[in-house]
């Protein structure tokens, strides 16, 4: 029998796969408690580097046409579909899912990407408008991306959770720093490999693995992060985040207590207002007259 070559799970920052600068690692175990892999125990400095990469990527990503951003999200779906076997294997090992359950999670993740891909050139029409102001002005409001967004992905489902939280954030032109699932981080790292082959510009999505207790406050306090969307923390942690976020009037948004099952529910977790909440409305006035 041949000995397999194992994969080193690193983080995903600025389109590359660095190890944590701290050199620390965390053990990932399977459902029965058996060792699966080591992942990076990311540090505050890793979050800082990720935020720098996200800020640098923001301008270019925002300027891409909506059509192109949509195609890149669709490309992500294509890439995920081609690699579904790998994700099924990881999900089974990591979270103790049956093949059927794992297959369902991957399929749902792909379809969710397709759904959000379609929004890239439609959210402006959905959330923007022309306003019939009383006066000789052409007045319109358009949603624009808010900037760098921190995402605290849910612990479970490990793949569907992170896919469902990244897509609505980046499709408008935001860039993000994602804190991956702490217990089940392998899919998040592998998702980086999907993203890097999807024509997604470097730095648009940055994925950090490690301990939420250490990483989330760094994000909330970071003055160059414009919003944090938290799908994981308990109420007390979230409140602390919200308080810290006030220093930069950060948009700190909580979608807490979503059950694992709910992530499969399109009515609940496939939500155009998750796109809207990380945009800013800009209203322009222009006179009408010869």
């Amino acid at each position, binding site marked *: 029998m041949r000995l397999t070559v194992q994969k080193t799970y690193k983080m995903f920052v600025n389109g590359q796969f660095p190890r944590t600068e701290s050199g620390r690692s965390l053990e990932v175990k399977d459902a029965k408690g058996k060792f699966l892999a080591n992942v990076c125990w990311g540090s505050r400095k890793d979050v800082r580097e990720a935020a720098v990469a996200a800020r640098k990527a923001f301008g270019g990503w925002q300027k891409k046409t*909506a*059509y192109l951003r*949509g*195609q890149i999200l*669709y490309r992500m779906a294509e890439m995920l579909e081609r690699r579904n076997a790998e994700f099924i294997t990881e999900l089974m090992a990591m979270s103790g899912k049956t093949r059927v359950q794992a297959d369902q999670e991957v399929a749902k993740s792909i*379809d969710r990407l*397709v*759904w959000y*891909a*379609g*929004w*890239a*050139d*439609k959210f402006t*029409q*959905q959330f923007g408008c022309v306003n019939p102001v009383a006066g000789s002005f*052409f007045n319109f409001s358009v949603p624009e991306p808010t900037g760098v967004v921190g995402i605290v992905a849910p612990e479970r489902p490990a793949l569907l959770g992170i896919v469902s939280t990244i897509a609505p954030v980046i499709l408008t032109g935001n860039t993000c720093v994602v804190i991956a699932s702490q217990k089940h981080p392998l899919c998040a790292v592998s998702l980086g490999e999907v993203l890097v082959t999807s024509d997604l510009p470097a730095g648009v999505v940055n994925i950090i693995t490690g301990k939420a207790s250490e990483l989330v406050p760094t994000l909330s306090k970071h003055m160059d992060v414009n919003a944090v969307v938290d799908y994981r923390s308990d109420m007390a942690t979230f409140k602390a985040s919200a308080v810290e976020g006030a220093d930069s009037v950060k948009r700190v948004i909580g979608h807490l207590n979503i059950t694992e099952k709910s992530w499969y529910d399109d009515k609940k977790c496939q939500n*155009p207002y998750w796109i809207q909440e990380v945009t800013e409305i800009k209203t322009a006035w*222009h*006179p*009408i*007259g*010869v």
Partner: protein
Amino acid sequence: MATEKPAARLELVNERMLQFGGKWQYASAPESTEPVKLEKKYNLFINGKFVAPKSGRYYPTINPATEETLAEVADASDTDVDLAVRSARQAYEKYWRKLKPSERAKYIFRIARMIQERARELSILETMNGGKPIRMSRDDDIPLAAAHFFYYAGWADKLEYAFPGRNPQSLGVAGQIIPWNFPLLMAAWKIAPALACGNTVVLKPSETTPLTALELARIVQDADLPPGVVNIVTGFGATGAAIVNHPNVNKVAFTGSTEVGKIIQRAVAGTGKKLTLELGGKSANIIFNDAAIDQAVEGIINGIFYNQGHVCCAGSRLFVQEGVAEKVIRKLNDRIQTLRVGDPLDKNTDVGAINSKMQLDKITELVKAGKDEGCVPHQTRCTLPKKGFWFAPTVFTNVAMSNRIAQEEIFGPVLSVLTFRTPEEAVEKANNTPYGLAAGVWSDKGAKLFKIANKLRAGVVWGNTYNQFDPTSPFGGYKESGFGREGGVQGLLPYLSLE
């Protein structure tokens, strides 16, 4: 209103004219036709298969640039159309209307991707069959067709957000008839929203340009669409009439001449079929004194000579404010000398072949009328190929509103130049037509653009640009230019019931 002939001083100043093409000529750069695999004979695409027409009839389709026959194409009879509608109905009832919208979306995304994958081949074929320059089919027609499928694919599972508070329902079988000026793109404009909304389709391409639609049929096959969801029948006016009049068709969409549009409207009246018409135009391009003149001139050129002027929204009437009239005409006259007319497959060609003998005759007749009525033509000095259908780009000065060339849709590379003094006069003249498809306004002053746009009775108004198309942006006309919109959220409406 002031309709007297403009002063003769608008005639060109010949001194200081620029000379072009004497020092450095581009060698011909023809696109290879190697990627295109033509069949000898094309059948009808019904129920997922290519089937011989019950009519037994075929007709030749040619390359208008060479008059060579490219292939034989089936001429569908009433019986063939009936089969196509039946297959569309069956596919609708049994499968398509029941399909989960997100699955419908994925089918349409597949079509978009396959058009992108086969872009080169499709653009060459479009150029061979239609006569349009390869640069346009390559850079505009084919990419935009893919983009259209991509955009509407995304709507398929989001209709409840487009029409909040309603329960949008598909209509059934859509009968769609499209013209020859943008063959594949028009097919995309029709098929993409129809499928996204859950309808099935019977589409008839123009008799002169059926080939890319038939390639699209192959893509539909390759994308594994359920048989009968898309049916493509080729033929002439009678085939179109059979679609329009078929009792099992729930929706008719037509793009073409106003004359035929009126016939269709009468035929459909009282049948309960939903109807959209995208018809002719005599669109105005208005240049104010304060416009960025060189860019405006470029916009006029693009507005009228793009696609040999075979564009329903072609800016065929130019209104220039008197202060810059001389300047604009001088620049136009120099600019048309750099238009490269000839082999549509040459990557450097700007103006290709006229689509058909019939169209060439119509253009020739109207240009003669222009000359007879005293309008002064200025043409690109170029040698036109002996074979094929060609017309040199033409700019008429000394035109009055009452001249036929200023009134009738020419659908060719012919521009009428008129002048105006005040914004109000420009608006009055621009609106003084039964058509209302599009208009262009050129001014450096934003407020003026919006003011004029407000006053123009046209479905699309371009400010400091012209002939821009995007799947997210609705397109369609006022008045005799038709009704209904294609593109954008509004482009879903013709294919849904919101009862």
